[in-house]
């Protein structure tokens, strides 16, 4: 009789031990709520705190969600220099966290069958399965997923950034036209432009709505005139400028006093100074990059490049004899431009021979008789210089071909300066120089 009791006791004890072991060591399985699982798992302590501080945590309980959970290591690796402000602000943090939460209960296997998935934040995560399964190029693995009663916790080694946010953080370092190193972290939202070319370019790439202030020479396009006038690079209304709270100010490279004062007040300044046709195209591209209007910029640049190519290829096809001789005059009589100037480059591109091209001075003052002797085929004067009538009536100029054939023209000064309208100037030159070809 005693032997039987011992046997039953031993079996019962063993059974208890086994059952206890099973309870202790066996994965509880999908019995926990997401919030509990998160709370208990030491790997996600940062995530847990963040979810709690933003109030998202409560919303998770009891409803079905899949959480792409950044580990504490992911939080450590996070580029706080660049994106630090996102974590500090409750709203942006909340949005960031919501980008990691998907409505519904999906395992890694489920996810691997999708190409994109929409998050709570509203933006989309892209999924790829070449090789391992990745979400926004970050690996997820089945072995690491944690199943809960109301969802899955899938660890990710990096914090995921929503595309729109990512694209506003451009993290760009540029060496500007004044030789300064300029760091632009985010796409600017409040731009002040005290360089007319920049103003024009911004409107051209549809980024005009980012402007909050301009200089007195920024009068093109029309809409620019609605912006507050802040003076000019050489005499800036500093207080008013600072009052507008710009996150970027664009100036000419030679506006040294403005650059200095703005820098002293901690404003980010970008100095521009395009001096060639290519410079203007590059500037458009750069602005497209800075303002997140890359597609607009590219469209414009391509358009301009087509025109430029069309004209310059015709120019190149001409022999030296076939090219027309051009005299270009500035606002002072007989003052011209050398090939070191923007206008000089345009003349050359359009296939003209600038008779003053080789002169030493950038804006050489020529003598009237020399011009007569050179006998240019075309004379072009800038719009704020002499009138074409005055030029045609000059003493001794009646023997010049350009005057005889009535090829004396006046050109709008903005069409031959380093702005996007330079293409208009180039086209005009082409039409004047070679009217039969460019009707």
């Amino acid at each position, binding site marked *: 009789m005693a032997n039987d009791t011992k046997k039953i006791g031993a079996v019962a004890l063993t059974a208890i031990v086994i059952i206890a072991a099973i309870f202790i060591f066996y994965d509880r399985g999908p019995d926990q709520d997401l919030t509990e699982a998160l709370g208990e798992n030491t790997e996600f302590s940062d995530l847990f705190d963040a979810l709690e501080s933003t109030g998202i945590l409560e919303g998770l309980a009891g409803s079905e969600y899949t959480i792409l959970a950044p580990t504490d290591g992911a939080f450590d690796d996070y580029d706080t220099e660049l994106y630090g402000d996102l974590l500090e602000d409750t709203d942006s943090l909340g949005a960031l966290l919501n980008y990691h939460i998907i409505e519904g209960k999906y395992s890694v296997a489920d996810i691997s069958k999708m190409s994109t998935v929409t998050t709570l934040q509203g933006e989309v995560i892209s999924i790829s399965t070449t090789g391992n399964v990745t979400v926004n190029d970050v690996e997820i693995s089945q072995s690491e997923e944690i199943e809960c009663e109301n969802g899955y916790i899938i660890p990710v080694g990096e914090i995921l950034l929503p595309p729109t946010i990512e694209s506003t953080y451009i993290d760009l370092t540029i060496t500007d036209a004044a030789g300064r190193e300029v760091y632009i972290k985010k796409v600017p939202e409040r731009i002040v432009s005290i360089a007319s070319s920049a103003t024009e370019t911004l409107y051209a790439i549809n980024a005009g709505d980012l402007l909050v202030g301009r200089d007195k020479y920024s009068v093109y396009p029309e809409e620019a005139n609605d912006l507050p006038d802040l003076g000019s690079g050489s005499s800036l209304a500093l207080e008013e400028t600072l009052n507008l709270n710009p996150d970027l100010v664009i100036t000419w490279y030679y506006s040294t006093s403005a650059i200095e004062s703005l820098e002293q007040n901690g404003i980010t300044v970008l100095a521009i100074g395009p001096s060639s046709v290519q410079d203007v195209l590059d500037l458009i591209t750069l602005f497209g990059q800075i303002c997140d209007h890359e597609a607009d910029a590219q469209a414009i640049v391509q358009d301009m490049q087509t025109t430029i190519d069309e004209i310059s290829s015709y120019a190149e096809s001409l022999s030296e004899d076939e090219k027309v001789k051009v005299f270009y005059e500035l*606002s002072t009589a007989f003052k011209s431009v050398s090939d070191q100037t923007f206008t000089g480059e345009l003349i050359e591109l359009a296939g003209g021979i600038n008779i003053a091209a080789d002169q030493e001075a950038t804006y*050489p003052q020529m003598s009237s008789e020399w011009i007569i002797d050179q006998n240019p085929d075309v004379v072009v004067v800038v719009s704020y210089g002499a009138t074409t009538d*005055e030029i045609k009536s000059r003493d001794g100029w009646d023997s010049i071909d350009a005057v005889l054939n009535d090829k004396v023209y006046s050109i709008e000064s903005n069409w031959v300066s380093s702005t996007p309208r330079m293409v208009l100037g180039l086209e005009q030159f082409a039409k004047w120089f070679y009217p039969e070809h460019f009707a």
Partner: protein
Amino acid sequence: MHNIDGYYQDIKHKRFMLLIGLLIILFFVTVLGIMVGPVFISPKVVLKILASNLPLIGDDIVQTWPGTYNSIVMDVRLPRVLVGLMVGAGLSVAGCGMQGLFRNPMASPYVTGISSGGAFGAALAVNLGIIYYLVPAFAFFFSAMTVFLVYAISMVRGKVRMETLLLSGIAVASFFSALVSLMMYLAAQKLESIVFWMMGGFWASGWDEVMIILPFVIVCIPIYIFLSRDLNAMMLGEDAARDLGIDVETTKKIVLVLTAILVGCCVAVSGTIGFVGLIIPHITRIIVGPDHRVLIPASVFTGGIFMIFTDIVARMIIQPSELPVGIITSLCGVPFFLYLLRRRKSSMGW
């Protein structure tokens, strides 16, 4: 015995010969000015071109040169040289007048603020977009205005004290200089044109400019000669001149008006060219003496010679490009000015 009569005749004769000599040099420099330019035209051709435009023998000369040469010689170089001559003469004679009036060897025709006034007039016209052929009129008007303003400020009980005139001239000149700076600040793109006025040059001088300045030069300079004796007497001091029977106040008025008109014209046509009105009277005095009856005609010649010559340098030195002639005259002028200061106590002594 002292041969005073002989000496006197000698001097008269010598001075007359010097005048002739200067006239001859002027003639040659003028021809040189027409012959020289960035476009090389041989002297023979130049002479032929000139001859072919003379009334009687002109038709006899066969044209063997390109048509552009004709334009260059007759429409570019000839008027330019003529304007240079007249401006040089005008500024020099005006300088003599000013030095006489102020009894000060450092006086120049710009001492009453004319150049600043004229520059302002031009700058204002340029900024307002006034049509090109009226810009000189603006310059002239303001030059003249400046002189009258300065004169009015210095007039006390019907008399003008020269020291007051000098000081008010400086004040008014500063005032207009400030206005010119303002014009330049507001000018933006037209800035270059304004700078031209302040540096002075003949590169845009054509027949229009000749016609503008010719009547004034022809009228004003003989009046100066007419006043030679009065100016001579004023060298002794205003009171002494009065005691010799000279109407000092009227002389001052006339000289100031003439200066305003003559210099106003020069500034209107070719901007402010410095140092000519200051140096040439001195150089001329060294050659022919201080008697205004000889000094003024001689200054016409020496002024013309100097101006044409410096203009040749201005347009040849970096040809085919040009330098403003004011730079050349200043480069000549500054060392000369310093030389003048150093020589103050010498035998020529002032």
